[in-house]
């Protein structure tokens, strides 16, 4: 038998199979398809971003930055007075964002406080107390809750919740910041609960064992070891919840009463930035000062939520790094 040269290439080897041209074209077509998809999503976001800022900054040409703070009213005797009002359709149009900002904060902050108490509590229950089978059912159920269309929650609060709290607390206005913040809590509690559970669950079991081994009770272990170790994750969940509360529209539009009051009274009607855009954008004439003013509100909202989300992202990524012991 003829001995083969070690270095000669053999064409009949089972490693000699070549890729067909069709396969190669198909592969690159698939690659191209997904690359275009990814790029499209990104391009749309950038375009929206550019449009928002382009339209919003035009407001500064028409209205001026200070007019977004207050309106300088001079009466007959020549005395100037600063007026913080949002009356964009008045003959003497006033564009102060102060009542809208206050309205947003007066709904978002109570909602965040309520949701922090209940959401973090739920997260602790899911991660540390509930038995695994119950948790497997409860966690998706709670996350599903966050997916209920907010218009439905708004409607429920409007039809049932507002009357209930009206009878219970007898507020100044039937629709007020408090009712809206309760409605907002339905959306934010699941967010905070789910993210808190993630943060607590990521704490290594070793730490729990160390604590129990030293004679700690469950509650001592949670409050002195687990919660402090997961502090950054839990606070990130609260920040994200707050961002969502500021950006949420339907619930505050339906339940907050929509009067642009300057107040710290939670039982008065307020008007949020989001509700203002939603209520007025459909009826404004394009290109008017009012139109640009609404876009400017959009910029303010976008900036606030952007930085809140950024802060939360930074905290969460730091937490991930820290937890790799």
């Amino acid at each position, binding site marked *: 038998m003829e001995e083969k040269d070690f270095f000669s290439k053999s064409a009949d080897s089972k490693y000699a199979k070549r890729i067909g041209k069709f396969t190669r074209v198909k592969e690159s077509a698939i690659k191209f398809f997904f690359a275009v998809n990814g790029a499209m999503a990104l391009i749309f976001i950038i375009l929206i971003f550019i449009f928002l800022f382009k339209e919003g900054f035009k407001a500064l040409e028409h209205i001026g930055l200070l007019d977004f703070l207050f309106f300088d009213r001079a009466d007959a005797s020549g005395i100037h007075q600063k007026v913080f009002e949002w009356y964009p359709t008045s003959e003497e149009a006033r564009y102060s964002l102060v009542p809208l900002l206050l309205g947003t904060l007066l709904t978002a902050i109570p909602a965040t406080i309520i949701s922090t108490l209940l959401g973090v509590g739920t997260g602790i229950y899911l991660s540390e107390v509930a038995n695994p089978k119950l948790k497997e059912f409860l966690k998706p159920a709670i996350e599903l809750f966050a997916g209920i269309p907010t218009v439905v929650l708004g409607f429920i609060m409007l039809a049932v919740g507002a009357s209930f709290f009206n009878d219970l607390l007898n507020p100044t206005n039937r629709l007020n910041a408090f009712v809206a913040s309760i409605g907002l809590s339905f959306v934010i509690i699941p967010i905070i609960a789910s993210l808190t559970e993630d943060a607590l669950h990521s704490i290594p079991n*070793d730490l*729990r064992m*160390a604590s*129990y*081994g030293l*004679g*700690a009770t469950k509650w001592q272990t949670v409050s002195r*070891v687990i919660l402090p170790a997961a502090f950054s994750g839990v606070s990130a969940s609260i920040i994200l919840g707050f961002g969502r509360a500021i950006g949420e529209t339907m619930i505050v539009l339906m339940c907050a009463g929509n009067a642009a009051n300057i107040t710290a009274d939670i039982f008065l009607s307020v008007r949020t930035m989001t509700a203002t855009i939603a209520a007025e954008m459909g009826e404004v004439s394009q290109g008017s000062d009012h139109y640009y003013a609404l876009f400017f509100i959009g910029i303010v909202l976008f900036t606030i939520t952007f930085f809140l989300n950024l802060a939360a992202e930074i905290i969460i990524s730091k937490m991930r790094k820290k937890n790799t012991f």
Partner: protein
Amino acid sequence: MKETKIAVKDLSLYYGDKQALKDINIDIPEKRVTAFIGPSGCGKSTFLRVLNRMNDLIDHVKIDGEVYIDGVNIYDKSLDIVNLRKNVGMVFQKSNLFPKTVYENIVYGPRLNGIRDKKLLDEIVEKTLNQAAIWDEAKDRLNENALSLSGGQQQRLCIARALAVEPEIILMDEPASALDPISTAKIEELIHELKLNYTIVIVTHNMQQAARVSDQTAFFYLGELIEYDRTTKIFTNPAKKQTEDYVTGRFG
């Protein structure tokens, strides 16, 4: 002969349907070092956790039998498990310090017991760090994150943390298995000193270590206690064939 500290009677443990420990009977003397040896999965670590009821934290674990510490059955239904764990300290295989400062790690246990006096806490920190032979290395780093210490230092800090709650018994689950030889030697030296005041039970897969540190050795195999005797006897003249095969390295 020293007095019996821990007496285990007919102890069986089940994970679900699977029996992990079979009718264990053993008497552990006080202020001595008792080593548990055996191949992986033989139940020695599981048995160690029986002694401070750590297995209660795992789902589907069922335990039959009795464990007496100073004559009290720790599996009595009305027994305060938290109090039990204060008296039976534990050091784990992997150091599991809290992500806090060195100081905070040590005072964690005393604080659980309601000690608030700063001066007293300071004394406890110095005393236990000295006991764990890490005072010289750690005294200038008390306010640093404990996780910034080296692996061997962290493990000795874990021992110091366990000592701070003043237990009578210390359970050690392969405390040196993740450490380099020098750190291991330090831990072993420490065990020698600690046995003057504490009853120590140590699980180890390192037979030389068992021979060096322990006074008596128990050999576990497939969930059974095969042989339990003075360490010198186990390693030089074991009564059972399985023990001899294991300690001479023929299996395991």
